[in-house]
């Protein structure tokens, strides 16, 4: 209701939120890996508050691109299931799903989380393609952070199935090796309502959102990817604030991730 949007804006000016959280407080976050038992080679269900995102990996074996004969591929896809929100029923917003997939992908790719050469089976002939498929089941805001975390958890707990040279197919019942991550980027988004910065917005808060900045950082603190979203501008100062505050949010997510999947 528009009345709520107005109230959210007014309260933000006073540093207050509808659910009583601090402006930079995150909702409860849970990560459950191995959510899919048999058909996926790595999976994770992440809940941030009521937002629920499921990521499943599918590993296929394909011919490499001719210009990269010794490298495998990562493909990231995101579905906003119509069940995730009432206004998605008549068809979810196409660009939102595409942006979500690309932002999540960028964090993983730019950090070189996976060494694509590790995915090579037979140079020039057979390489692994890792499909990262995100399925948003319930959207109550902050999809980017939830999806990125789920993707990282799925990769960290995932494996590559064995390749049978005789039949030239994958034997999904046999593991070749765990997916090794060269580094583990974590992605968080800082949001702005009016002149106030805040973190982890709910679905309702998102309707009053003016701008957001997503930041992906590696363990060494370097930033590997960014994305500004929504329709209002951010000042360079606000961006720096978000980049700095991001560190403690990222640390928190890292701890939650490591508690579930280990280091």
């Amino acid at each position: 209701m528009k009345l709520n949007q107005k109230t959210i804006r007014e309260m933000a000016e006073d540093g207050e939120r509808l659910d009583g959280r601090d402006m930079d407080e995150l909702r409860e976050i849970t990560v459950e890996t191995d959510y899919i038992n048999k058909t996926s080679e790595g999976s994770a269900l992440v809940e941030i508050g009521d937002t629920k995102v499921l990521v499943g990996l599918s590993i296929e074996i394909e011919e490499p691109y001719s210009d990269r004969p010794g490298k495998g591929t990562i493909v990231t896809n995101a579905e906003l299931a119509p069940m995730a929100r009432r206004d998605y029923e008549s068809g979810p917003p196409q660009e939102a799903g595409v942006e979500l997939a690309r932002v999540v992908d960028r964090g993983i790719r730019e950090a070189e989380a996976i060494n694509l050469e590790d995915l090579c089976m037979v140079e020039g002939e057979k390489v692994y393609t890792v499909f990262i498929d995100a399925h948003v089941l319930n959207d109550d805001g902050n999809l980017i952070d939830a999806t990125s975390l789920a993707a990282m958890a799925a990769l960290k707990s995932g494996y590559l199935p064995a390749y049978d040279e005789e039949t030239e197919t994958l034997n999904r019942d046999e593991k070749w090796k765990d997916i090794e991550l060269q580094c583990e980027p974590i992605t968080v988004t800082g949001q702005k309502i009016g002149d106030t910065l805040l973190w982890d917005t709910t679905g309702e808060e998102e309707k009053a959102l003016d701008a957001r900045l997503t930041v992906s950082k590696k363990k060494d603190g370097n930033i590997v990817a960014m994305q500004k979203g929504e329709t209002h501008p951010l000042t360079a100062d606000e961006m720096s604030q978000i980049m700095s505050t991001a560190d403690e949010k990222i640390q928190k997510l890292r701890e939650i991730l490591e508690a579930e999947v280990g280091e």
Partner: protein
Amino acid sequence: MSRVKEEDDLVTPGDLISEGDDSADSGAYEENNKIYSKYLGTVHYSGQNIEVRPMSGRYMPSAGDTIIGEITRVSYSRWTVEFNSAYEGSLNIADATDEYVDLDEDDLSDFYEVGDAVVIKVKSVTEGMDVDMTMTDKRCRKLEGGRIIEISPSKVPRVIGKKGTMVKQINEKTNCNIIVGQNGQVWISGDKANLAARAVKKVEREAHTEGLTDTISDWLDEELEAMEDE
């Protein structure tokens, strides 16, 4: 006559409630002299009438209901009101104000604009679900500030309480102003609006339990104490 389910029992769709002379009221249906439930809900006997009150379900407008809605369209001589239902309502100029309005001169947006939240009454509902609304009840007004939360319409009576006791209790302890719409939209205004909202949601969750008034009273006292300690 044999009654398989007792007063206040929880039933699911297709559950047999009674066999014999009883008749089916709202939420129940009859087949071959047997009364079955249509809902996941609670059984209520009223003489020989059997009613099943559902635990959930979206709002169906009913004449006389006072609800909270939002103006979504302003036309030449009327406004359209949405209120979390499959149906929208129409507010005609004649039912909106006692003032004289010259349709060629005055702008209806001066009274109510798109986006305004209002407490409004359902005047009439036709079989084809055309809903007419009116603002001429003294409880009707435009809402400013505060927040609106959603509860299941089936839980509204519990949140209001017998003779308004439950909502009054929450109002007093949190020093808030709460208006409960029959459609499940609840407007809350005040400093401790967040606490009041949580109390309302707690009543909704535990609506079917006994001694709820005391439970909520105790819970509110605890929360208020905790807030003071901070």
